[in-house]
């Protein structure tokens, strides 16, 4: 009965057990009606911190999900199509970022470029579960979030080159990727800045459903940010409000242990971020962010919780960035042993191994995907290279959505509805 036992472990979110090791903490976090639904998650330890386990309605799903990974159980987690989709997305992220590094050193890209190598499992694991109308808010490390959300590689590459065909017409740059069509709400330079914005987007979704009576509006927002952000005041303010108003948001912490050169352990009084969720009345989950399947399982539950209207979740993904903070970072402070430990857990290699060993696809099919992605990225570079730089007149455009300020145009309609309204407003 390995299968059913595995299944029981597989969905830890429905198990109402609560393991506690510190009695004095039990009362403060005992399940209350406020929590609403059944989302009580089982606790597990974080081996990397070697800290005495604390109680809480908070779990690390990593252990539970790990238990059911035996190869004999076929296709528990993903179908072939899903597997290939995940693989393709992660390879796209990796190939794209590697190409960015090349282009930067050739001078085609400039300014601050922050690469996502090593963290692909988090982006793919979460964003591939979203619909087009769901929104994603990210930080400056946003290229791969944009790609996972569906922004074409060509648009992202052109934006990085500063060309007018970029997703923000060259005005935003690496750190400010926006896409109305794909509901990518940025790209923010200041850490923590995106969290209130994401909370606001979730508020809109709830407002649309309840005030504007769009009954089927169940759009979810994902906020991605790092471990350094978890010491910032805005983070806590938003955890409070999201839980208070039961907003459909998932706070995804990409804990890669380093904020430029500042280690997470040096800057945080309690390094276990997932525990900060229950302090505000939402579940906090820790997951192995180097394993896309585990991330995907946690994401499924967190996103459907939000869609059902049960409120926010805090998910801490233990992950690692293989490169420095940005392409200008000499990356001298990180221990090479730590780096090689995490490189051995490369999410793409892990997924590839899983797919092949579970006989979901053959090595040849995966290689074909690799090749296809290489072509996509090369094509993106060519496209970006050949695209024109922004014209002089573009400098003064888009400062306002309604530049003339009057609201109504000469034809009697609102100016902002006229697709050509910014033309002719640049004074050069």
């Amino acid at each position, binding site marked *: 009965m390995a299968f059913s036992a595995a299944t029981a472990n597989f969905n830890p979110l429905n198990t109402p057990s609560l393991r506690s090791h510190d009695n004095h903490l039990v009362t403060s976090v005992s399940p209350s009606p406020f929590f609403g639904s059944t989302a009580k998650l089982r606790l597990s330890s974080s081996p990397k911190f070697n800290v005495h386990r604390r109680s809480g309605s908070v779990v690390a799903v990593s252990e539970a999900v790990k238990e059911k990974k035996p190869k004999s159980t076929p296709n528990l987690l993903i179908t072939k199509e899903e597997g290939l989709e995940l693989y393709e997305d992660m390879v796209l992220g990796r190939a794209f970022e590697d190409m960015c590094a090349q282009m930067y050193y050739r001078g085609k890209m*400039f*300014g*601050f470029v922050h690469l996502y190598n090593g963290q692909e499992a988090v982006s793919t694991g979460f964003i591939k579960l979203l619909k087009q109308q769901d929104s994603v808010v990210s930080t400056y490390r946003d290229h791969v979030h944009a790609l996972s959300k569906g922004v074409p590689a060509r648009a992202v590459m052109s*934006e990085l080159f*500063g*060309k*007018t065909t970029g997703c*923000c017409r*060259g*005005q*935003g*740059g*690496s*750190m*400010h990727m926006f896409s109305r069509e794909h509901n990518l709400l940025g790209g*923010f*330079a*200041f*850490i*923590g800045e995106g969290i209130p914005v994401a909370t606001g987007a979730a508020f809109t979704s709830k407002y649309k459903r309840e005030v504007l009576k769009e009954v089927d509006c169940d759009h979810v927002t994902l906020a991605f940010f790092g471990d*350094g*952000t978890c*010491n*910032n*005041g805005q983070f806590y303010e938003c955890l409070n409000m999201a839980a208070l108003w039961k907003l459909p948001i998932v706070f995804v912490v990409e804990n890669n242990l380093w*904020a*430029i*050169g*500042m280690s997470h352990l*040096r*800057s*945080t009084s309690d390094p276990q971020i997932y525990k900060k969720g229950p302090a505000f009345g939402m579940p906090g989950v820790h997951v192995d962010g180097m394993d896309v399947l585990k991330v995907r399982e946690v994401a499924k539950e967190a996103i459907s919780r939000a869609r059902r209207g049960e409120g926010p979740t805090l998910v801490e993904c233990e992950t690692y960035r293989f490169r420095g903070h940005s392409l*200008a*970072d*000499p990356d001298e*402070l990180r221990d090479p042993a730590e780096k090689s430990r995490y490189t051995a857990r490369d999410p793409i290699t892990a997924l590839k191994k899983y797919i092949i060993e579970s006989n979901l696809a053959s090595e040849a099919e995966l290689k074909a995907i690799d090749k296809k992605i290489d072509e996509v990225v090369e094509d993106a570079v060519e496209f970006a290279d050949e695209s024109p*730089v*922004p014209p*002089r007149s*573009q*400098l*003064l455009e888009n*400062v306002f959505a309604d530049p003339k300020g009057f609201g109504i145009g000469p034809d009697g309609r609102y100016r902002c509805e006229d697709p050509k309204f910014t033309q002719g407003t640049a*004074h*050069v």
Partner: protein
Amino acid sequence: MLAISRQRILGQCFQKIRPAVSELRSYSSAAKQITVREALNSSLDEEMSADPKVFLMGEEVGEYQGAYKITKGLLEKYGPERVLDTPITEAGFTGIGVGAAYYGLKPVVEFMTFNFSMQAIDHIINSAAKSNYMSAGQISVPIVFRGPNGAAAGVGAQHSQCYAAWYASCPGLKVLSPYNSEDARGLLKAAIRDPDPVVFLENELLYGESFPVSDEVLDSSFSLPIGKAKIEREGNDVTITAFSKMVGYALKAAEILEKDGINAEVINLRSIRPLDRSTINASVRKTNRLITVEEGFPQHGVGAEICSSVVEESFAYLDAPVERIAGADVPMPYAANLERMAVPQVEDIVRAAKRACYRSVPLAATA
């Protein structure tokens, strides 16, 4: 210029800097050249060794040796109690710095760029700037807020704003902006010794530039007075005021203008608040024409204040309208060609000077 600076930035992060201390020891007669980075580093070093109440606080100032390597070597020298690596909480650590200053210490708070100071601006203005007044002189706040300000190269809208005008409009703050190594050393030392809150606006692109300094500048007791501008280049025909990186541009423009027979006087403001109105006015009374240059947004900027001051005090001496050169009135674009258009260039200054001298150059917008 931007292309060169871009490479320099990449180079800086990999460059090992010679310790500034060794340079100070060898008093040779030839003018020494030090970079602005070394100037700042040596000032911090000397002030920290002179006064144990001075301490540094900021993101990456310690183990990382400073995000722009300004605080290199200081952690080894003074230890983690005086060089504090903070978590990423500007509001929190700025507040902590201000509180420490209330109670008797002399913090130097570093913002990785002044854009991030917006997260802490409540403490800079409300807790630091206004306290001496609110407490009727009982609580003075001897704190320095320093960091790079203004546009760098290709860093986008949220990393490129100039905050000189914002901070300079607030009574209770002193706002300084150095240009060369001498300014950097003298003004930072003066700021640390000053009993009032000082906002010290550096420029990332100037960090790697070398300037000659005399032995007097290299002496550890050197400091410059706060509130005095410096006339970098004397002239008779037109006054150009600038601060920070724009001083370099103004000097280049002055050389170009010299070939056309226009003798420009370049004033390095050094101190935005208090503004050295007497030097500016004296200069305008001599030359009768004024051009103000700044990198920040034009509306309510430093140039606007200077123009007002000159109109109030020296209106009769003006022979031409005051020309104000500022950055474009848009958030900084990322694309390289747009960014070049959004920041004043040497040609803009030259054109404005010629206009002020009625040399029939058509009025072109800064873009």
